[in-house]
């Protein structure tokens, strides 16, 4: 029973982190049609910056607050100068460009902070463990489990009920029409990209106390978030939520129950979805 | 109808969700007759072509080609059977040369799709055949040019040449004169008439330009809001009050 509960909670906490990152990826894809290979690197940057702030100021909350906006600023530069020139071109080139950016950032992180792994401790109030049945469970992970859905709901409210949210959704559905009614699409794209980057970096900062911070973080998470987005449906929030949860559980239960196959499970699921329902669980007919 | 029908459509309907694009259309095209399909915007002409050419399946009803039921036949097999289609929005191979654009359907036509051991002699034969087809549509001396550099009118000629490469029995021409100036339009009309008279191919043309339709069609079918409104000779159609109403009396009078 304890093992089961631990697996559930682990699946949930990892799933919520994945959800945060995938939300950014799926929004960028839904509105701009760009699949950002460098998204995982932005996540990783968020983690590293948080770690750096902890070193400088000693406060996790400062890192959480200041790190992601910095990454967002970087992403604005990326979008404006590197990605924008490619919008008319073949989708493959956009993918290749973000692939190049990923290589650059992943190694850049190594250059600045070295190749070693670092540990970031959770802030005082969220550290330690609480008793759960006859075992103990880290408080921080519970925090993640609660935070994830909260952020998700906040974003859902934003997209469903606020003016900006509606504009974004409209632009996602029909770019040309949005332009005709006066939406400045290039500016919108930059804003969406920055938003996606902010979310990714936020996920990274939150992930820092959850797992060790190291240069391979980005590479690992980008594939998992790709899978989440594809399974859930490109551009869909509920899809990202469900997809992230599925992957989180595959991760936790898979490692316990079928360790040899566990690594392949997300890819198997990805393939099944792509071949039977390519638009994803919640995706719309392309 | 006096001769054998090459294309026959029975109670054809096609819906997209709640929208019914084609309702219970029945018609037959006689072999060798240059026929035309007309109708106001949104009448369902392109949908009709899409269903007949295998892109969509009928929601109900059937399509017969030379007596065979092709309602569920996939597109690529229809081409092998002799049913080809051209496109309103030019749909050619941009980064290939003029010659390569024609060679492609030729290669498929001669069943050499997977030929690796392409003997030089065979290739020369194919190239010659491609040149002949280009000559027939009036595009000579441009074989090595990249098709993307051609003038619009010439691209439309490639559009037709691709179809002719497969020596089709039936060709669905979707607005062949779309976007053309009067001179190019006349050229196209003459070309289609010539091809229709001199070859075994049956041409079924859909057009917006009434002048084009009335100058070459032997039989006209009128679609309106998905249903077949009328069919007959050009004179009969011109005199048809319902057809006039459907067009709000505009473009038909202009064709006089």
């Amino acid at each position, binding site marked *: 029973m304890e093992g089961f509960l631990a697996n559930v909670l682990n699946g949930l906490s990892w799933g919520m982190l994945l959800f945060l990152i995938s939300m950014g990826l799926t929004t960028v894809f839904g509105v701009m049609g760009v699949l950002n290979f460098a998204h995982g690197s932005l996540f990783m940057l968020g983690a590293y910056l948080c770690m750096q702030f902890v070193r400088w100021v000693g406060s996790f909350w400062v890192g959480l607050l200041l790190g992601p906006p910095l990454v967002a600023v970087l992403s604005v530069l990326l979008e404006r100068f590197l990605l924008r020139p490619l919008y008319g071109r073949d989708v493959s080139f956009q993918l290749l460009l973000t692939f190049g950016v990923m290589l650059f950032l992943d190694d850049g992180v190594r250059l600045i902070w070295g190749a070693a792994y670092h540990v970031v401790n959770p802030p005082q109030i969220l550290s330690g463990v609480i008793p759960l049945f006859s075992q103990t469970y880290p408080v921080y992970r519970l925090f993640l489990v609660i935070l994830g859905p909260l952020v998700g709901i906040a974003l859902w409210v934003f997209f469903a009920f606020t003016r900006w949210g509606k504009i974004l959704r409209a632009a996602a559905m029909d770019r040309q029409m949005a332009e005709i009614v006066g939406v400045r699409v290039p500016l919108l794209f930059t804003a969406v990209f920055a938003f996606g980057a902010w979310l990714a970096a936020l996920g990274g900062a939150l992930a820092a106390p959850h797992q060790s911070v190291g240069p391979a973080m980005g590479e690992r998470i980008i594939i998992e978030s790709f899978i989440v987005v594809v399974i859930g449906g490109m551009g869909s929030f509920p899809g990202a939520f469900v997809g992230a949860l599925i992957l989180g559980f595959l991760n936790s239960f898979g490692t316990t129950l079928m360790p040899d196959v566990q*690594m392949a499970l997300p890819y198997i699921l990805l393939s099944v979805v792509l*071949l039977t329902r390519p638009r994803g669980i919640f995706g719309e007919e392309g | 109808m006096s001769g054998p029908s090459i294309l026959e459509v029975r109670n054809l309907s096609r819906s997209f969700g709640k929208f019914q694009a084609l309702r219970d259309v029945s018609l037959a095209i006689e072999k060798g007759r240059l026929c035309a399909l007309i109708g106001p915007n949104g009448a369902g002409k392109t949908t009709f072509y899409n269903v007949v050419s295998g892109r969509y399946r009928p929601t109900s009803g059937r399509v017969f080609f030379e007596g065979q039921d092709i309602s569920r036949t996939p597109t690529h097999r229809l081409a092998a059977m002799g049913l080809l*289609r051209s496109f309103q929005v030019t749909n050619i191979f941009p980064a290939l040369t003029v010659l390569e654009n024609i060679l492609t359907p030729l290669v498929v036509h001669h069943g050499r799709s997977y030929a690796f051991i392409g003997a030089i002699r065979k290739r020369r034969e194919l190239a010659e055949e491609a040149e002949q087809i280009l000559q027939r549509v009036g595009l000579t001396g441009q074989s090595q040019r990249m098709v993307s550099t051609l003038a619009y009118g010439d691209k439309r000629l490639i559009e037709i040449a691709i179809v002719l490469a497969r020596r089709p029995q039936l060709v669905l021409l979707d607005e062949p004169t779309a976007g053309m100036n009067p001179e190019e339009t006349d050229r196209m009309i003459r070309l289609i008439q010539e091809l229709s008279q001199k070859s075994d191919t049956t041409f079924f043309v859909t057009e917006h330009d009434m002048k084009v339709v009335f100058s070459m069609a032997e039989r006209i079918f009128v679609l309106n809001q998905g249903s077949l409104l009328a069919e007959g000779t050009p004179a009969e159609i011109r005199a048809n009050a319902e057809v006039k109403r459907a067009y709000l009396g505009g473009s038909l009078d202009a064709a006089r």
Partner: protein
Amino acid sequence: MSALSRRPWIAGLVLVAALLAAPFVLSMYGVIILTEILTMSLFAMSFNLLFGYTGLLSFGQAGFFGAGGYFAVLTLLHGPQSLWAALAAAMLGSALLALAIGWFCVRLDEIYFAILTLGFGMMLFTVAHNWRSVTGGSDGLGSFSIPELSLFGAQLTLFNPKNFYFLVLFVVVLGVLLLLRVVGSPFGLLLKATRENSNRVAFVGANVRSVRLFAFVVAGALAGVGGALFALFNRIASPEMLHWAFSGKAVLMTILGGSGVFLGPAVGAAIFFVLEHVITAFTTNWMIFLGAILVVLVLLFPKGVLGSALDLAGRSRRGRNP
């Protein structure tokens, strides 16, 4: 110059002659680098059959590359002690894998194709990484001996890098000739047409899926041969050879050299290795440079180094492909 454009095979002959002479001119180290370049060229060119010619971006070609390596090593470990048998096993095994996987992948387009190939490639990676009993797990398969090569009556030991180089050169040239055949054939024309307008290709009567699958199998088979050479050269078949990051290398080399030119990926492979050699001399963070170069290429020189160079020389159509 004009004589060259009328007979492009002269350039090919010159190139092969140069490659034959290379070991007698270069140092041992140079020969080793050249061997690596040749092997990766085969891999990258097989990738480009799909990307440049058919318009299919596959992020899973490393799966076939690595599988070929494992098939070759497994043959030497458990089967006949023959190099040709090992290479044949690699080619056949990878071809069959590509047939099975490709059957699924060609059903999808564009980005979905890229993602699915990535997925299948990683599934193969998992098999190589976890199936300890057969593949040696994360340690890979080493400890096999490379048999001597019997060629034209002579027994050549492959411990000598020069001999190994000639073996690789021989196999790679064969592979390239096969690719040349495919690309210049009517089937090659169909591939290009499919890249340009797959919709229209269906409308003129070709089965697009079959065409793509055929290309996928050829690409997989050649990647497998490349992987066999790679594994034999490095004396080990390891799971990294199947990882999507390794697929990325083929992509990089192709973009570097130019996907629109037949030999583009080979030139890209050469540039890649030279760059790596030069840059790692003064820093370990050479991926930063590679990433930056890729970004610059995609933005400013999408035709790659060779493609852009040929463009400049005013021979863009001739260089486009045979």
